[in-house]
């Protein structure tokens, strides 16, 4: 019991929602705990949670726990008394007392009304039937989730933000969903007709059935809901009906105690109601004729309200331009301000690409942005919003504005970006955070003349390379010399490119690195770290069984057959054919991890187990132990075949059409150990559901009833590239032949360090098809060359090293006495 006399004023908050609690948080930040003791009444039996995220809970993207804002502990720690599950029934302004439904009466000095809003419920017959609910609170979400578990058909009434999110969530939960909307287009308050049509098309493709211009006449049913009857005669059967046609401010309490109300509780700029000791924030208020449903202005209200409570006599609330986004995974919508031109003086500029599902519109008034609607690509939304709020004069940017920030700020409208006009602080290289100014400065100060010099000195375009063109333009602009377009040389030791070197190796019978370097007049006798691994690979590929691999020309990972980590330890990944393992193998892996105190054991994306943090000197002993269980190198470090990922296929899966696991193992057994220009990953999926993600692999096989679809040139990573279809094979044997031929074509034609995706992007899928599909004889010859070279490649490097070869790689040199 607190024995010190309470001198603080009592602040009572009606409503434990987002607006009320944000105000309390803001007040605490301002030191309000010294000024007020705080009591909060909440009608719901929960702590304070993020109502906006209910749709994510419904869709299964988040759990209830994820959306809790303040735990009970938070209330306790901050000395706040929380009364949950008990709504306030009356306010006595004379006596300054609020009374709850359960009869709790408390006196207040200051009162905050944050009662939020209620779902709009027009007088539709049948609203009271079991199976009808709103989409407003946790109880509603529980009802919907319950229905999704036991029922099939849902009808959502209302095609605004909330209705669409409800529909999508229920769809995600496996219900068949129809959506009824009164207006001809969806989200008509936030989207213009073209954007709304794209949205409807995309959601229609995702399986939501739309009934636009549909006026609900009755919700039918006897004991529970059975369907929705529309005024035009259409009837939609339903087990669950969700009403999401809008909200109205919850003003009952305020009205009953005589506060000034209109649509909402009327507040002035200082968030006070008509009673100066009573504040109000959130969806229940009306400010200068506006009511609020989005969170951003409500956060502003909370801040102003808290400041006023803390004694700041200057804080004022002013509504800002607002933006809307829709929370449906993969559907990107942005809208702010005016949707269309108000009159002929306004400018509307639109950009539209129906096939890609992209739409942009900006609305300009007196040279300033007053509205933007984006669909498909919303990355520039916040930029547009800022331009609107800042009332930036856009007369000069008008022509480029609709193309987005990067183009508007960097480009002049021609195909070449206007380098000269670009401000110095424009970021050129996003990976390394390099601006135009620092690149130009480096070029001038250090006299840089080539792209590789600029890369070396500034790191610009040295990571993902997407800005290479811009950096070249900058270089040309700064030096006044246009870059010479020449095929890139292998490295700085030579002017020769990859293709001419590979051709010469065969045509001129060059069989050693020295011979190649002499033939092309290399400037450095022993080459460098760039050309040595490339030449070593080209010779190995050209002369299988003849050329002896030079381990000193390999990167450390391929020399020691493990992946170096940033702390100088290594990772070890044993091969698991097709991702299949056995208890004995798992025992062996577990024992090794314990015996050598390996700190981290992780499952990889390629269905293997990675042992991370192995000390270099332990590697041979680790491999020896793994080898006893039959485990061999997984080549997770190699420019070679890494993994063949598979699904369980027809052996177990009820959808499987072929034995995808078995085929994956066969492919892996055929291709392991080969050296390739860069790493290679395969996958085999047993049906078009494609659980093995075959469409982003170097080669993917998707089994269908009629055979095997072969896909090539896919890639995850920075630049995701979906495979190109190569052909459909009838039998497993055919697949094996295509795979062998594909591997060999890639080995013979790609540049060192070039994945299959950029290689195919460079030579074209038609070229690959010509060599592998149209030319039966050529395909068989490629496959034969691959299998021949495999005769020299398929020796387990771990077994060799566990047996003592290359021992000098793993042991340190001791001091001799």
């Amino acid at each position, binding site marked *: 019991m607190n024995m010190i006399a309470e001198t603080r004023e009592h602040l009572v908050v009606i409503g434990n929602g987002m607006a009320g609690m944000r105000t309390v948080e803001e007040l605490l930040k301002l030191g309000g705990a010294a000024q007020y003791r705080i009591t909060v009444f909440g009608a719901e039996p929960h702590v304070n949670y993020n109502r906006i995220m209910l749709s994510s809970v419904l869709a299964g993207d988040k759990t209830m726990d994820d959306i809790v804002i303040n735990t009970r502990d938070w209330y306790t720690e901050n000395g706040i008394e929380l009364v949950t599950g008990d709504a306030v029934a009356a306010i006595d302004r004379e006596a300054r007392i609020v009374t709850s439904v359960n009869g709790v009466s408390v006196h207040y000095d200051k009162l905050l009304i944050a009662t939020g809003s209620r779902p709009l419920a027009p007088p539709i017959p049948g609203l009271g039937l079991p199976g009808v609910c709103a989409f407003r609170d946790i109880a509603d979400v529980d009802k919907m989730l319950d229905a999704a578990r036991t029922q099939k058909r849902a009808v959502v009434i209302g095609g605004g933000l909330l209705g669409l999110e409800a529909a999508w969530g229920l769809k995600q939960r496996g219900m068949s969903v129809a959506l009824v909307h009164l207006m001809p287009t969806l989200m008509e308050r936030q989207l213009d007709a073209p954007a709304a049509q794209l949205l409807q098309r995309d959601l229609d493709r995702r399986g939501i059935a739309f009934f636009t211009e549909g006026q609900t006449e009755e919700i039918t049913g006897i004991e529970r809901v059975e369907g929705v009857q529309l005024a035009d005669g259409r009837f939609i059967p339903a087990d669950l009906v969700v009403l999401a046609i809008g909200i109205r401010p919850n003003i009952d309490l305020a009205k009953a105690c005589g506060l000034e109300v209109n649509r909402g509780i009327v507040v002035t700029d200082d968030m006070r109601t008509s009673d100066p000791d009573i504040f109000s924030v959130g969806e229940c208020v009306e400010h200068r004729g506006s009511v609020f449903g989005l969170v951003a202005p409500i956060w502003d209200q909370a801040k102003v309200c808290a400041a006023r409570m803390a004694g700041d006599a200057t804080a004022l609330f002013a509504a800002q331009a607002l933006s809307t986004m829709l929370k449906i995974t993969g559907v990107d919508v942005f809208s702010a301000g005016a949707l269309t031109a108000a009159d002929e003086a306004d400018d509307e500029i639109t950009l539209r690409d129906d096939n890609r599902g992209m739409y942009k519109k900006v609305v300009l008034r007196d040279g300033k942005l007053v509205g933007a609607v984006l669909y498909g690509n919303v990355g520039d939304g916040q930029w547009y919003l800022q331009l609107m709020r800042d009332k930036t004069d856009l007369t000069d940017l008008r022509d480029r504005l609709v193309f987005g920030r990067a183009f508007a700020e960097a480009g002049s409208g021609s195909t070449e970006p206007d380098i000269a006009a670009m401000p110095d602080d424009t970021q050129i290289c996003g990976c390394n955070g390099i601006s135009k100014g620092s690149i130009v400065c480096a070029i001038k100060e*250090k006299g840089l003349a080539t792209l590789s*010099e600029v890369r*070396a*000195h500034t790191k610009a375009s040295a990571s993902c390379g997407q800005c290479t063109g811009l950096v070249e333009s900058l270089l040309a602009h700064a030096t006044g010399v246009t870059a010479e377009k020449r095929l890139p040389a292998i490295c700085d030791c030579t002017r020769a490119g990859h293709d001419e070197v590979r051709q010469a190796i065969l045509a001129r019978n060059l069989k050693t690195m020295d011979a190649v370097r002499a033939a092309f007049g290399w400037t*450095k*006798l*022993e*080459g*460098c*770290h760039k050309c*040595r*691994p490339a030449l070593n690979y080209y010779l190995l590929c050209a002369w299988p069984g003849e050329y002896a691999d030079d381990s*000193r*020309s*390999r*990167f*450390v990972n391929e*020399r*020691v057959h493990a992946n*170096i980590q*940033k702390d*100088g330890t290594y990772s070890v990944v044993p091969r698991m054919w097709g991702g299949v393992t056995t208890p004995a193998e798992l025992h062996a892996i577990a024992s090794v991890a314990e015996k050598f105190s390996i700190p981290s054991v992780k499952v990889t994306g390629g269905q293997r187990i990675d042992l991370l943090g192995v000390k270099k000197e332990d590697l041979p002993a680790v491999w020896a132990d793994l080898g006893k269980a039959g485990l061999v190198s997984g080549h997770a470090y190699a420019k070679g075949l890494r993994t063949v990922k598979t699904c369980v296929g027809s052996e177990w899966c009820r959808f499987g059409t072929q034995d995808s696991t078995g085929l994956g193992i066969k492919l892996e057994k055929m291709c392991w150990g080969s050296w390739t220009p860069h790493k290679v990953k395969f996958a085999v999926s047993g049906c078009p559901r494609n659980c093995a993600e075959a469409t982003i692999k170097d080669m993917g096989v998707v089994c269908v009833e009629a055979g095997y679809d072969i896909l090539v040139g896919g890639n995850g990573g920075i630049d995701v590239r979906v495979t190109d279809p190569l052909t459909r094979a009838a039998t497993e044997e055919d697949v094996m032949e295509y795979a062998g031929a594909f591997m060999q074509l890639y080995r013979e034609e790609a540049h060192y360090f070039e994945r299959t995706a950029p290689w195919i992007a460079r030579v074209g899928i038609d070229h690959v098809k010509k060599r592998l599909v149209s030319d039966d004889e050529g395909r068989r010859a490629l496959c034969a060359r691959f299998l021949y070279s495999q005769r020299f490649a398929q020796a387990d490097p771990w077994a060799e090293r566990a047996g003592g070869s290359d021992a*000098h790689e793993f042991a*340190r*040199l*001791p*001091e*001799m*006495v």
Partner: protein
Amino acid sequence: MGDFTWKKIGLIAEIPLRGARRLCFGHEGSPIAVFRTGADTFFALIDECPHRAGPLSEGIVAGETVTCPLHNWVIDLRSGEAASPDEGRARSLPVRIEAGELYVGLPIRETA
């Protein structure tokens, strides 16, 4: 030229041509690597790249340079200097060969 403690580390054949070995002992807490070039010249460096302390002994040796395996800095084996435009230096230690056996010299700390 300061004084050195010379440590014998074995026959030159223990170190692969165009390669390197790390030693069991270090200097002032840092590891030491001994390099052998294609021309059979020997060098010793503190085995830490000036950039992020990557193990230089694991790099590709070409001429009298080694390339760090972590981020491809090129280090001069003789001076330990990073090739331009990178800046930094790995400390170099003297190496001596007597009767086919390698010695590396560790500086004796000056006592003031």
